[in-house]
């Protein structure tokens, strides 16, 4: 009996003591590692400056299917920072970019964001690709009083439902984007009546975009009937069944909510089914999608883009494109451009406030008009939404002589922000 106890005891030991001891060791190590990473606790708006540097954090998606967008945004921000440093830094301090990958998972995004704030003491944050992760980040930024700039995630909820004063949205949001698309369609259609079909990814963004688009179309005075609506899963590899069902309903116009890789897939498969000869299609044909499609880019299709670099003729934009191409070897997508402008906005806020403290920067930016590579942008004081436009045009049939890629036909339109968003009441 005693031997049994002894054996059981030893068994317990082996099974519990060593792992427990090891766990203690790991904890100790973790505690030491993290506390040495940053000793002063947060407080309100820790300036994150030690000596002559200030850190900013980019917590975005750097792996998986949307790595593209996150990386582009990060590249844009890094370029802005390198130019700021070349001009002598911000308030005499050098700016350093610290980045973290949220792997498009909200829990990981929260960890990364918190670590950036608590360990690296960043003075500003730049947010994620997905609106779900962005909402989580917004909560944390509000909790620790760190200004956060959204340059990719653009859900309208970020400036309404989950809004706090430390958040800034630099992209046209999910109300503005469909409004611009609706204006583009209305220009083509006139008053109708026409037959419209929609296809969009089956999640919040896709569904909300279509709903807003149809509502805006009605407001623009177009009379239409919806012949079919398809909602394939996000990231689906085959749209053929949905597209042929769509085409069977004989629409004259098709609104496509897919973007990025999905749009490339949909376009290729649509071409095979004759989608672009049977109906007029509109989608987010930005430089990345057009580059991937190459000769298969659907000429004449309606297109929209949050910040196309080829439509304006500002010298600042030209200089930016050249610098970006030199640094990264490719043309900047809208996410790189908006990211760049977000960094510019933060730097402007710091310069105006003459301080790195969060509350001063936020106060300086609220309602301010910031000069950026996209032109002068006003940040509304009521919800910190940037009053920006969404450009619309049609896909070109020939390669652009200046850029060697098929882009848009000349005559792209950028509606004024007032046309796209309701004013603050």
């Amino acid at each position: 009996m005693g031997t049994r106890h002894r054996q059981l005891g030893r068994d317990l030991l082996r099974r519990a003591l060593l792992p427990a001891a090891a766990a203690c060791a790991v904890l100790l190590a973790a505690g030491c590692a993290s506390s040495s990473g940053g000793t002063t606790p947060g407080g309100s708006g820790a300036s994150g400056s030690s000596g002559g540097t200030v850190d900013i954090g980019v917590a975005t998606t750097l792996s998986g299917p949307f790595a593209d967008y996150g990386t582009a945004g990060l590249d844009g921000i890094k370029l802005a920072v390198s130019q700021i440093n070349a001009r002598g830094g911000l308030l005499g301090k050098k700016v350093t970019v610290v980045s973290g990958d949220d792997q498009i998972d909200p829990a990981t995004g929260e960890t990364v964001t918190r670590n950036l704030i608590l360990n690296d003491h960043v003075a500003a944050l730049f947010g994620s690709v997905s609106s779900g992760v962005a909402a989580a980040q917004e909560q944390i930024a509000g909790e620790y009083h760190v200004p956060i700039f959204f340059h990719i995630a653009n859900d309208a909820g970020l400036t309404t439902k989950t809004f706090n004063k430390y958040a800034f949205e630099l992209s046209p949001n999910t109300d503005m984007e469909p409004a611009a698309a609706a204006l583009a369609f209305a220009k083509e259609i006139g008053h109708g009546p026409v037959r419209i079909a929609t296809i969009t990814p089956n999640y919040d963004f896709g569904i909300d975009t279509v709903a807003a688009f149809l509502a805006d179309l009605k407001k623009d005075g177009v009379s239409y009937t919806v012949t079919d609506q398809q909602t394939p899963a996000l990231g689906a590899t085959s749209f053929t069944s949905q597209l042929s069902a769509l085409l069977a309903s004989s629409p004259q116009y098709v609104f496509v909510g897919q973007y990025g890789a999905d749009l490339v897939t949909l376009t290729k498969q649509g071409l095979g089914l004759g989608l672009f000869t049977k109906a007029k299609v509109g989608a987010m044909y930005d430089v990345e999608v057009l580059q991937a499609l190459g000769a298969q880019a659907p000429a004449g299709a309606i297109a929209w883009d949050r910040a196309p670099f080829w439509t304006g003729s500002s010298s600042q934009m030209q200089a930016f494109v050249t610098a970006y191409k030199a640094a990264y070897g490719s043309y900047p997508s809208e996410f790189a451009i908006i990211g760049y402008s977000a960094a510019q906005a933060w730097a402007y806020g710091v310069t105006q406030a003459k301080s790195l403290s969060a509350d001063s920067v936020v106060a300086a930016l609220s309602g301010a008009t910031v000069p950026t590579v996209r032109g002068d942008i006003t940040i509304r004081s009521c919800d910190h939404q940037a009053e920006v436009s969404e450009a619309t045009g049609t896909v070109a049939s020939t390669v652009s002589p200046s850029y060697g890629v098929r882009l848009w036909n000349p005559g792209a339109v950028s509606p004024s922000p007032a046309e796209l968003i309701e004013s603050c009441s």
Partner: protein
Amino acid sequence: MATFLAAVRGRRAPAAVVALIAALAVAPGALSQAALLNVQDAIGLALFACATNLLIGYGGLVSFGQGAFYGIGAYTVALAWMHLNTSFWVTLVAAPLLGAVAALVVGLLALRTRQLYFALLTLAVSQLLYVIVQQQESFTGGADGVFGPMLPSFLLSSGNAYWFTLAVAAGGLLLLWQIARSPFGMTLRAIRENRERAEALGVNVFGHQLLAFTFSGFFCALAGVLSVVWAQSANPNLFSWTESGYPIFMAVLGGQYTFLGPALGALIYEQARDVLLASFSDSQLVFGAVLLAIILAAPDGVAGLLGRGGRLLARRWPARTAGGQRAAAGTAAAAGAGAGDGVRRQDRQDRHDARTGGQQDRADGQEDRVARS
């Protein structure tokens, strides 16, 4: 060393575990806020991993779908708050119960299959829930998940949240521990080692496995509640098969043949992940490489490595006293004879160490499978 062994020998509660809990309890004073939150996260994940390991390490049932119950636990809190404004303290109790019920239902379906098919079926269940939750936007909040002040104000202070998590996790682990070393747990392990023999002995295999599955679902859902305490939100990713994979990896990393192994794995994983995310952009590569190394070189996980190291030490430094000698002899005997689970495996591992080579490993594996089939 010998006196320590002698001291612990007589008691039931492993003193080191108590020491660990004490160390964890004072952490809020010692650690920075970021580190504290990481440890809090790790503690919740430790419960998730150990609950899963009840199935994997003890039951021999590799379920790739425990994320389903984890998510159910989290979403019970979130949705009850969102639609019914239910108090957190109510959902704290309701969530694990719902998890247990769900596990019972899934178990009835899934436990009729074996081994690999069981893993695939549980994976499918997990993914099915993931797709449904994402899709039913109006009810579940869709792909973005649920946000809002769903926690009571008591839990909004980081110290309180931490101690609450520690208390719940420790309580949960204690209960799991009791389950694991009860006769029920022993029978479960017997079933894992040789199902046919257990059946021949009259054991209701299906009943035992179903009960284990239900217990696991209960505690995984409880871990899900803790995830809401940490994140103050719920999102559909909790249901995905990649989330279900985490406790499995933690169990493999820490050691699936010891009770606290998965908890150790959770701690290591959490710390390592932070370091990786911050310093490397190739976090996937490193994680994959580490997993592979563990599988190839140390299938018993870190705990197994430590165990082997510990026994090596014990053999090198036998105690001087008579009691100590008996202790040393006892340790060797236990190592040789095999009291309780995992030892048989470690034993074979020891023989394997002596004669290195993959051949031996494969032979063991063949033996193992023949014994099992």
